[in-house]
């Protein structure tokens, strides 16, 4: 194993956090740097102390691993974070290309496999992947398991929510626990799992409360905070840190709403974010807010929860219910109708002026763009901008190109608002 890159990345993240924290005024931003760094520090500690690590794809419940005293680490997002922290995009992507992963698949997974080819990723005791998200999600975990010669488990996910699907998925979580018990010799601590899920239910309640608060005009939350919340939810699900994050963000947002102040001083445009923006930097969103008063006030893909509640007393069913109700999973699995209807509802409830779809290179979810764009235009009366970009590769499209497109769109939206007010 070559841990040097991981250790360097965590060190860079720690340095960045110490550099940024004294300047940060938002309690949410401060908490993000602290908790995000702490997540990777925990994994580093596990590596040095020889604790057993469970590597898992997004949407696999980390609550299970915490309850079995393992240290969970997200595969694709942690590899991505390590690359962002060390800026080794080229090395990671060329490595995966050399291994046979072509450019016609998502760069997040190409980077992930680069990390596994080079042995940069912490050696896990097991890998758990899931048929959620997209084909690359469900397929790349197997390649990682091959590369590390590591036992893996695939969680099968029903196509869409139903009573039958809920039971099937709950049973799948049960089989995952059996697998972990068999591979590690550990036993599930069911009381601890229930406690973890109770925290998850609280995190979910706070997440929903924040979503409600964001309907306020002006919007009380920064664009970047939404994506931070999405990641914090999945890396810290079921933990005190997760509850802490959502409490801090809720308090900050609620305080602003009560005082009638917005996240930015001069909000002019309220935007809907329809898909994952480039994850290597959120400066684009900061620039839109600062220079044009254009703020993403909702992200239907990560900020619209389904209505059903999570009941911790039945832990496996609770985890299955969370899967079906959580944003992202309910948008990109199942029929696109839910995603479209959610987005239309958001436009109305959040008083949205325009939407942006980030068309990520090689992402086959882009098959939904036309339907979303037409539905938002016909049923909600707003235009949608499609920005071609790459989720993790900063060289695919330059920031300047994206800025130019966004600038033109902002001008069009501003003119529409002027016309409407006349």
């Amino acid at each position, binding site marked *: 194993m070559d841990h040097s890159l991981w250790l360097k990345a965590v060190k860079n993240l720690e340095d960045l956090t110490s550099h940024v924290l004294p300047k940060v005024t938002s309690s949410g931003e401060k908490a993000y740097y602290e908790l995000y760094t702490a997540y990777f520090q925990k994994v580093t500690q596990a590596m040095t102390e020889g604790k057993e690590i469970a590597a898992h794809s997004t949407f696999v419940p980390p609550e299970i691993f915490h309850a079995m005293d393992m240290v969970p680490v997200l595969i694709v997002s942690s590899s991505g974070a390590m690359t962002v922290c060390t800026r080794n995009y080229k090395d990671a992507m060329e490595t995966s290309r050399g291994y046979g992963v072509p450019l016609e698949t998502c760069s997040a997974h190409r980077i992930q496999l680069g990390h596994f080819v080079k042995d940069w990723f912490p050696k896990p005791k097991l890998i758990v992947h899931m048929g959620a998200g997209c084909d690359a999600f469900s397929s790349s975990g197997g390649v990682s398991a091959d590369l590390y010669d590591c036992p893996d488990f695939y969680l099968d996910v029903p196509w869409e929510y139903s009573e039958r699907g809920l039971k099937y998925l709950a049973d799948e979580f049960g089989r995952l626990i059996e697998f972990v018990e068999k591979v590690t010799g550990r036993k599930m601590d069911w009381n601890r799992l229930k406690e973890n899920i109770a925290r998850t239910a609280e995190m979910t309640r706070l997440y929903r409360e924040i979503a409600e608060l964001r309907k306020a005009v002006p919007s009380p939350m920064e664009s970047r905070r939404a994506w931070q919340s999405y990641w914090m939810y999945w890396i810290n699900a079921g933990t005190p840190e997760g509850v802490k994050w959502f409490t801090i963000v809720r308090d900050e947002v609620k305080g602003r709403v009560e005082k009638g102040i917005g996240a930015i001083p001069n909000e002019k445009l309220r935007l809907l974010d329809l898909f994952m923006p480039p994850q290597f930097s959120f400066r684009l969103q900061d620039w839109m807010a600062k220079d044009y008063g254009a703020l993403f006030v909702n992200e239907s893909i990560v900020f619209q929860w389904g209505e059903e509640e999570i009941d911790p007393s039945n832990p496996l069913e609770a985890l299955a219910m969370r899967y079906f109700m959580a944003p992202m999973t309910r948008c990109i699995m199942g029929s696109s109708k839910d995603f479209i209807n959610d987005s239309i509802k958001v436009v109305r409830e959040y008083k949205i002026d325009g939407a942006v779809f980030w068309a990520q290179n090689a992402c086959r979810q882009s098959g939904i763009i036309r*339907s979303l764009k037409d539905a938002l235009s016909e049923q909600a009366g707003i235009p949608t901008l499609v920005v071609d970009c790459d989720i993790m590769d900063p060289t695919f499209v330059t920031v300047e190109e994206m800025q130019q497109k966004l600038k033109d769109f902002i001008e069009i939206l501003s003119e529409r608002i002027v016309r409407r007010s006349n």
Partner: protein
Amino acid sequence: MSQILKTLDPFKKINTEFPFASPIKDWKKSGGKVIGFFGGDVPEEILSAAGVLPIWLRGPCSEVPLDAANAYLHMYSCSHMRSIFEIALKGDYSYLDGVMSTPYCDGTRRLYDVWERYMPAPAMLFLHTPHKNTSEAEAFHYQNIEEFVESLERVFQKKITDEALREAIRTYNKTRKLFNRLFDLRKKNNPPVLGSEVIEIYNASAMMPRKDFNILLENLINEAKAADRMPNNCPRLMINGTALHNPEYVKGIEDLGSIVVADSLLNGAMSFTDLISEDENTDPLLAITRYYLNKFPAPRMVPSEARFNRILEMAEQFHVDGMITGVVRYCAPHIYDEIRLSKRFEARGIPSLRLDLEYGMAATGQIKTRVQAFVEMIEERKRKG
């Protein structure tokens, strides 16, 4: 090649009539309903038992401009799916009484979405299929299939009886048994059928009633058995990858001095090798459920090792010297599958070649050059023993 297979002509004729071939026209003329589907796990037997003609939708056997489809599906939806929709948008699939899919991959899911939104057929049907073949998955899928049967009965106002299901199973199994006889001929030292010809046969199977198809296939096998066509000792190849319909692609590979003796294509061996149980004591819906979860695994199924072992076994049975995988751009399931499968082939000393394609491409230009080098490398290996 010393002899031409005359019995191949009816298949070729039907294929030239794509996408509204005469057997489909005849079916419609007699008042029959037609459902077009995409995704490799649609239980055609159930559609057939409902009195419906299932048609496996595809694009043209050539690379064509996708201007109309591109307006609805982003280029990251593979050109296979966009080619199907291109034909639909031109109105050439307007004869369909229904469209059906499964969540086979992101491409089929999103194609179904746009089809349903922009040009819904009178019946739009969707069936979930699990990715596993555990007993729990079987119970889950059985219920999915039961529900699907009920919806089909509602749409077509027809009861699907056990007897009709058993009859459909027998008919579709007959196709599979015949294909297994054809595959056996391909295991011989001098296979009497070319890989490109087998693609013609696969294509026709998707566009006509199975009973009629079975007659044609039986005729072809009888002729092929008696034929003495192939001289040779040329490299024996297996083809793999995204569903493939252009015989010219395979012909291009064979024209370079090889013969394609086997495939693990979704529209080929993956669908035509295994049989559904015909046991009279087994509930036919349960037999269908088990078949679709346990048949020759597609890349979407886990554990993947079952698929890899199956393909490696085939390579051994068919005396394969090399494998060529054609991956249509952005076909994520096959991209990742090929990475893992090729490493297992190489571990057995069987070389493999991946070709990044657009749907409908023939083996021309760069592809030809790469295949030629691959074939020469295999010949060299064979010479050296």
